[in-house]
């Protein structure tokens, strides 16, 4: 047992031979404690009549049968055109939101713009997210009137808040390798963004765009209240008057349409990421777990 080989593999400091003490991780414990305390306090203090939950299942069943047993097929055309109008509003809102938020989110990303630009941008995104959709809609309404266009614009403004945030988060979470490569060939900041950052963030950003479109279809419901039309209007009309089979019909149409959109967008996303078309509801992961990407973006130090 020569001393040479004894230490050889361990050029490391001659620390204790044992496994050391199990670390306490105090900070993590405190965080958990605080969270638990918060939840307990909220449950304990909130004004809830738990007894109401007793007939929840029976009631739920009752309303489900009212809605779907059977849905009012006569409302199909109305439900369909309302959903289409909502989809149009959501699409337009998303497109405008993307056009505005995309450059702004670059300006909000670390490593792109100086802090003096970055923080105001992030503040703007947070501010937009803090303003309720209805308030945004009422502001826009005084400009464009009681139209579906107002609805689309309200969705566009709302989208800027979330898309902006998601945008700079994904720009910041890319692998630095290609960015380093574009820097090392002498590329300007714009060139580094275009070729070092964007190709990597692209799939994630596309995913967020599509997801926001999906959210906008649903959010358009609230805008129906202010006269923008679409599913929101039909929804409130039917819910207010307890026409549950009408609600059921609308729900079926909304679900079918959004699921179709979801499948299409999943397909597009798959195309961007893997280079092949595939429906997300089907399909298993490819059997090679050693993903090709690991070669490309193997970490550097």
């Amino acid at each position, binding site marked *: 047992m020569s001393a040479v*080989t004894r230490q050889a593999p361990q050029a490391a400091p001659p620390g204790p031979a044992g496994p050391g003490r199990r670390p306490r991780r105090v900070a993590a414990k405190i965080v958990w404690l605080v969270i638990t305390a918060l939840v307990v306090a909220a449950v304990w203090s909130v004004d809830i009549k738990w007894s109401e939950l007793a007939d929840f299942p029976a009631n739920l069943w009752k309303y489900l049968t009212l809605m779907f047993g059977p849905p009012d097929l006569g409302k199909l055309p109305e439900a369909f055109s309302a959903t289409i109008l909502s989809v149009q509003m959501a699409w337009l809102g998303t497109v405008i939101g993307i056009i505005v938020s995309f450059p702004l989110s670059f300006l909000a990303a670390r490593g792109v713009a100086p802090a003096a630009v970055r923080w105001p941008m992030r503040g703007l995104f947070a501010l937009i997210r803090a303003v309720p959709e209805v308030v945004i809609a009422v502001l826009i309404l005084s400009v464009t009137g009681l139209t579906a266009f107002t609805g689309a614009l309200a969705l566009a403004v709302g989208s800027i808040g979330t898309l902006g945030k998601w945008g700079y988060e994904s720009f910041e979470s890319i692998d630095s390798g290609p960015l380093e490569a574009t820097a*090392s*060939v002498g*590329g300007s900041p714009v060139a580094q963004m*275009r070729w070092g950052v964007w*190709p990597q963030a692209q799939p994630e950003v596309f995913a967020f765009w599509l997801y926001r479109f999906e959210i906008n279809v649903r959010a358009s419901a609230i805008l129906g209240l202010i006269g923008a039309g679409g599913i929101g209007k039909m929804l409130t009309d039917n819910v207010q008057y307890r026409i549950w089979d009408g609600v059921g019909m609308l729900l079926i149409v909304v679900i079918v349409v959004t699921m179709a959109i979801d499948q299409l967008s999943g397909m597009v996303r798959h195309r961007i990421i893997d280079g092949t078309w595939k429906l997300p509801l089907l399909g298993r992961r490819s059997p090679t777990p050693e993903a090709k990407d690991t*070669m490309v973006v193997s970490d*550097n130090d």
Partner: protein
Amino acid sequence: MTQPDIRFDHVGVTYPNGFSGLRDITVDIPAGQMIGVVGLSGAGKSTFVRSINGLVPITDGDITVGDKSLRDLSGRRLRELRSGVGMVFQGFNLVGRATVLSNVLMGRLYHTSVWRTLLGAWKKDDVNLALDALARVEILPKAYARASDLSGGQQQRVGIARTLAQRPQIILADEPVASLDPPTSHVVMRDLQKINAELGITVITNLHFLDLARRYSDRLIGLRSGEIVFDGTPADADDAAFESIYGRSLTADDVLDAPGHAAGAHLGPAS
């Protein structure tokens, strides 16, 4: 058209966390040399080559490339310097989702206008240059494939082509053959050697493997803990040099039944 010399003058690199990556390095690299940099993992090889194009900022001393001092070079002037220094990365640093050609064209970014960059509307000349570079490393047929669809060796060659398309005066290669199989390693190393010989470009290569470094370099630099512990021709790199670089002699390691594994007496196969 003279190639620039590289001069390290008492260079030190201290990382923001206080760790010294390089200490008091003074070394002269005349234009046109083929240099192998060897050392243990963590010795500072990457830090050494990355400091030459300013990817790692130096904190002490100075590096001069040609007549330019790297100290406080920034913005457009730094980019200009970088455009003359090509870098081949260990992890390839390709944009997997872009085509091979786009990746190689990234080498031309310094010479491309902003709007062409944005639209990806490369100049015809640059495209030809990129295609030539691909031809040189013999993967021209893959020009329009997605970079991520290539094998490791092929990806490494795309990295080299990107550097060639840059038309650099200096090539820095950070472990260009790690995780390639031996024949492919040799191909890549010979490519670099040929570029050095034919075009007179200075090539500085980090290598884990002393044997590769010995075979393909004019000059070896051995690093350990951020300091130069060896500097000489491959012929000089004997066992003593090995020991100074790797901290122990190869021979002791080669002993089949090294003693000293005390623990684990009851580690047998489960019944």
